[in-house]
């Protein structure tokens, strides 16, 4: 069966420090991968999505970046965190099903607090 792992679960970082959140998927190949951010009282904002190794699409211009060094690994990074980067970050994957969008499967999330 497929599983998705996301870490760390909780992170407290000072302003200006770097960030690295990691997500890995097991039990499937060539998944679509996503990073979302959920701020308090708001919906999920799509940050990045990837359809293959090295292929990253950015939805929101900001100081975050994403990389996909391996088929089932997706990394969210920042060189210098801002206060506004605080939030709940969710990694998700879906299968490539041709013309039809597949269900998203989410990790447990990473709660980032920037002080």
């Amino acid at each position, binding site marked *: 069966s497929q599983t998705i792992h996301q870490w760390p679960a909780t992170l407290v970082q000072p302003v200006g420090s770097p960030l690295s959140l990691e997500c890995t998927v097991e039990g499937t190949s060539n998944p*679509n991968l*996503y990073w*979302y951010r959920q701020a308090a009282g*708001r*919906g*999920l*904002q*799509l940050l990045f*999505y990837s*359809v293959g190794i090295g292929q990253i*699409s950015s*939805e929101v211009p900001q100081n975050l970046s994403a990389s996909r060094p391996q088929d089932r690994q997706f990394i969210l990074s920042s060189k210098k965190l801002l206060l506004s980067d605080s939030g709940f970050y*969710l990694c998700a994957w*879906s299968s*490539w*099903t*041709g*013309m*039809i*969008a*597949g*269900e*998203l499967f*989410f*990790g*447990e*999330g990473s709660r980032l607090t920037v002080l």
Partner: protein
Amino acid sequence: AQSVTQLDSHVSVSEGTPVLLRCNYSSSYSPSLFWYVQHPNKGLQLLLKYTSAATLVKGINGFEAEFKKSETSFHLTKPSAHMSDAAEYFCVVSDFGGFKTIFGAGTRLFVKA
């Protein structure tokens, strides 16, 4: 470009009464549409999805949604609310192939005893 609008940020119903959570979408292509639920301190779970088959879609826990192309709507309903339905609900639109999936802002459902 695609977008999704959930018309109510909060909905409050009494237990045993109907639930209606409203969603309108915009998409350049024939979209795939989903409803997800997020219970407090838990991950997101798929309730149901529409992918150009039957316009009335039945999901888990007695929920259903109807795709109305003329109204660009995909409202979520349930005949009788249960206390366990209290959660946040997200309407989601996905483009051709599912490469880009956009969430609505969410509707928080409160169920009163």
